[in-house]
């Protein structure tokens, strides 16, 4: 089996990826594909990108040794602290990259989809920074469960458009953003928030998020004298924080990569968002990947307590990492994630996002030794999830 884990020129990771877009979107996607390498590899771009990551987003994000968590699980556990970035998650890495790209392409209007609101906030933030118009599509269900983020986006000057189709969550918001792009092809740039969508988005987003694993190499060398942990754990919805922390380790086969999906009520209950566990090959939002679907090929509604993981597809890079066995994909339920969030809070004084809590909950599912080094990507902080955490306690 061909085991390269970077996208080929048509955006394929093995059998997954591609650009299944209607002709009305073709030109948008193609013009981005034609220029993105050249722009993002230019010294001017790199200088601005790394400068903003450092002086605006607050990178590098720390690598914290989690002493009490390590004692509990009997391993050396480190936390990659994406929760400490400006806007509260890893999403800002990608939106900074894409907004510079959009500006270089002469675009004046930005659209985005959002689930938990973290990508929406990160997009609204960089639009304010650059003085660009910003429209964020968000499912009505998500607007209710992540209300603080709606308020933040509005304060940042974005227009948040409620989406009322389907389950009113991330998938539906993405449909609506794609429709907006069809209707506004000339002036508008679509900042996709995860490693999903038509080529070149999965590759583009993975590259911008790869700053996470780039930092991890040197941080771990400093802390442990080795660049390679035994395990890297990250939650997977579309899979951008996982793609980012896996990126520089993909060809280091001694490092076990573990993605953690949202099982919702449980993978066999029908109320789940664990696409790799229950999905089949299909096409969603322009990408050939694993898709949750019924026997007629209709995309089924996912369920997870975590709005950021509530997606019936997965980035094609993860479909390929799973198919080749290079990465393992576990899943944890709503309940397990909530318990893990409380555990991290009590043991380490860090309130994680519900999404990141899924990665933490997988710690209990690994068979580890005392000397094993485990890095968990804490992709975001839990401020937006306080309501869910309070409700879970009562």
């Amino acid at each position, binding site marked *: 089996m061909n085991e390269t884990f970077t996208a080929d020129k*048509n955006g394929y990771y093995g059998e997954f990826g591609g*650009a299944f877009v209607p002709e*009305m979107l073709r*030109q948008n996607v193609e013009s981005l594909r034609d220029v993105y390498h050249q722009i993002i590899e230019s010294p001017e771009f790199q200088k601005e990108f790394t400068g903003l990551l450092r002086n605006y987003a607050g990178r590098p994000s720390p690598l914290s040794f989690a002493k009490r968590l390590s004692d509990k699980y009997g391993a050396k556990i480190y936390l990659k602290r994406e929760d400490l970035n400006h806007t509260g998650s890893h999403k800002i890495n990608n939106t900074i990259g894409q907004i510079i790209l959009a500006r270089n392409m002469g675009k004046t209007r930005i659209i985005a989809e959002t689930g938990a609101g973290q990508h929406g906030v990160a997009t609204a933030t960089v639009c304010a920074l650059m003085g660009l118009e910003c429209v964020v599509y968000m499912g009505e269900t998500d607007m209710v469960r992540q209300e603080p983020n709606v308020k933040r986006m509005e304060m940042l000057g974005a227009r948040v458009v409620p989406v009322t189709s389907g389950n009113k969550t991330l998938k539906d918001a993405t449909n609506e953003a*794609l429709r907006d792009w*069809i209707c506004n092809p000339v002036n508008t740039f679509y900042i996709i928030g995860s490693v999903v969508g038509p080529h070149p988005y999965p590759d583009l987003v993975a590259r911008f998020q790869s700053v996470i694993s780039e930092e991890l190499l040197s941080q771990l060398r400093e802390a442990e004298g080795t660049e390679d942990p035994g395990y890297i754990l990250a939650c997977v919805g579309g899979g951008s924080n996982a793609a980012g922390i896996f990126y520089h380790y993909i060809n280091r086969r001694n490092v076990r990569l573990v993605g953690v999906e949202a099982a919702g009520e449980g993978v066999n209950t029908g109320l789940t968002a664990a696409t790799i566990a229950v999905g089949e090959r299909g096409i969603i*939002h322009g990408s050939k990947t694993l898709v949750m679907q019924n026997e*007629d090929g209709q995309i089924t509604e996912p369920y997870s307590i975590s709005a950021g993981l509530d997606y019936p597809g997965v980035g094609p890079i993860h479909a390929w990492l799973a198919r080749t066995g290079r990465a393992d994909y576990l899943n944890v339920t709503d309940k397990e994630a909530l318990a893990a969030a409380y555990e991290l809070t009590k043991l380490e004084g860090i309130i994680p996002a519900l999404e990141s809590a899924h990665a933490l909950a997988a710690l209990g599912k690994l068979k580890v030794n005392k000397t094993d080094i485990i890095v968990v990507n804490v992709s975001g902080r839990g401020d937006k999830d306080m309501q869910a955490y309070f409700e879970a306690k009562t």
Partner: protein
Amino acid sequence: MNRIDKLFQSRKQNILSIYFTAGFPVLVDTLRTIQELDKAGVDMIEIGMPFSDPVADGQVIQRSSEKALSNGMTIKLLFKQLASVRETTDLPLILMGYINPVLKFGMENFLHKCQETGIDGIIIPDLPVEEYQEPYEALFEKYNILNIFLISPQTPDERITYLDSISKGFLYMVSTAATTGTINNFDESQIAYFKKVNDLNLKTPRLIGFGISNNETFIQACNFANGAIIGSSFIRALDGNGTLPENIHGFIRKIRG
């Protein structure tokens, strides 16, 4: 010869193609709708296969698709309903839908069923030519099913010429940068685009779709192409107050003028 080619060979002008979503407004009316459209004098029929996530469609077809799916429409059932369609009509018939349900059904299985049923062509907006040619083109040829390509105002001239060179049947010319059913008349930039494409002297016949909702826009479209495709406004008419035949005949009369 494929019925689509036959149509464009015998008629160069004022071709009217009607799209409807199978299973809307009620599950069982597929054959009756086709029958009445035939009687009303349309030239071609596009039967929509509903999909849960129709990204190229505006609200009207989103809603008709949602309703059709909740009524229980599937590709399997649609082929069952269409089994005797060739006893009903000799019009060219096209199936239109999104790629995921077709792949789930199995492309070869799907094309085989199309041939068996008497379907002449397929329109799958999210199967662009780049993803079509290598795996599927030979299969379409094997079963003599035409794959219809779209062009839009954003399509560069050289790509239009390329799509023309490999096209069979006709080119589906999207009138505007929009999803289906979102505009009701043509502005100057659209007319300029129609003229530009007209001046490219393409070999393939063209039908203009998106935004045609009355006699005036139908005539305008026919001035710059071989005819027009109507979807959303027909679906609105299907939801009207009359009986199914009344709604259909009334609408087609209004369009033809």
